[in-house]
């Protein structure tokens, strides 16, 4: 199963975790064969939001999120099950300063039949 681990940090802790530590863990997960992708993100003030309304593209600065913890990076994994994904997520160094949300990747339902089988 594919899992997306979303890393959330408060702005105060954005740089609490040294890049070297993050890179080290990246290599470790890479070697395990479970890693599909992982990237850190720039802070929220560099974000631009796109919306399409009535066929019109609206581009705005932000978002100006009200939440305290903001998306700071992600790991996309191919793990056997949730327990394996949680083990990897717990090892992501920023988990010590913020939080990591683990979400299963959904398959698109195409052609009227469920591609996922027993749903």
């Amino acid at each position, binding site marked *: *199963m594919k*899992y997306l681990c979303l890393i959330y940090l408060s702005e105060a802790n954005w740089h609490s975790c040294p890049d070297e530590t993050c890179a080290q863990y990246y290599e470790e997960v890479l070697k395990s064969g479970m890693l599909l992708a992982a990237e850190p993100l720039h802070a929220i003030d560099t974000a631009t939001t796109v919306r399409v309304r009535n066929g019109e593209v609206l581009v705005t600065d932000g978002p100006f999120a009200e939440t305290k913890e903001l998306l700071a990076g992600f790991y996309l994994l191919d*793990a*056997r*099950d*949730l*327990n394996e*994904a*949680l*083990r990897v997520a717990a090892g992501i160094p920023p988990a010590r300063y913020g939080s990591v949300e*683990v979400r*299963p990747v*959904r398959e698109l339902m195409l*052609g*009227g*039949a*469920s*591609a*996922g*089988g*027993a*749903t």
Partner: protein
Amino acid sequence: MTDARAIDTVYRQDSRRVFATLVRLLGDFDRAEEALQDAFRAALEQWPETGVPANPVAWLVSTGRFKAIDRLRRERRFVALDAIEEPAAPPPDDDDEHGVLHDDRLRLIFTCCHPGLGDAARTALTLREVCGLTTEAIARAFLQPAPTVAQRIVRAKHKIRAAGIPYEVPAAAELPARLASVLRVIYLVFNEGYSASAGEHHLRADLTDEAIRLARLLVELLPEAEVVGLLALMLLHASRQGARTDAQGDLVPLEAQDRTRWRSGQIDEGLRLVERALALPRWGSYALQAAIAAVHVEAPSHEETDWAQITGLYEVLWRVEPSPVVELNRAVAIAMRDGPATGLALVDALLARGELATYHLAHAARADLCRRSGCVQEAMAAYRTALTLTPQAPERRYLERRLREMEAAVTG
């Protein structure tokens, strides 16, 4: 024994065991439940003619699996894009059967109590899938509408499927944390039944029994110190159940309970289990709380309780689990050992820290210590504060009674 009765007995004793194995073989709770019902339907049809098989559990598992495959094949004709996997074959060798089936029940418990599910979902799912309670029975016991509980169970099963919560006993490194989650569910179930007031008691006493049954099963499957400790703790608490309320349904505090009404069978078993738990490695807060409960039940009267030992046990408990509630209990034990003034100073210092400011039992304890120190006005004020913070009716009645007694003494 007639065949119908034989089937009934097997259903009561073994249906959840069969279910646990079918979940592993079919990889899905709902398919396993369907297969279980199909297997018992087949047993009702066939056993009267063929007789009860030598190994009814194995018969039901293989029949259930066969029926499930049959269902899948029939459904397949209607599913264009077939991604359904054939269910796993049962273990080829029956010699290993006991070990595998044994693990299936543990797998089921750990899956239902996975920390990725919320507390309410975990308790409902465990009672439904491990204990086999109906959704209606769970709803009645938790005083909730049945559709709420049903929806909670459906959502939990959906999360298990969609998020890929595995059907497995956690690895050794993760076992302590995951076991804590299982024990928490069992203790939540127990307390839900134990704290029920007398009026609703007949509906909810089932929960204390169910929790004890679950803990017994877990002791059998995974005899860790904390599992044994939790069973001991629940038995020792349950032994006092009958003496905790009077004929009017009012709460009787420990010091006023008729100790002859405590149930000696549960006490004896509880005491044996406390010793067993403390002799095992890795005991923790459940085993310690059981040890404290053991000192209480062994005392001939409240005054003759070994308060020094209880104080010592609370010291150790505080080191294992440094919570303000544990500190409060330790302060109360110290008050019994050294007198109310010493205890009151500790409780006041604790209340001043603020964490327990809205905890009714902290104010009730303060009220009690003031009363025993002879500070009448302060005691009455503390009882009133405790009353504003107490939601449970029996506890409110108890505090109101104490307050009235004091008011009568002042005016009289």
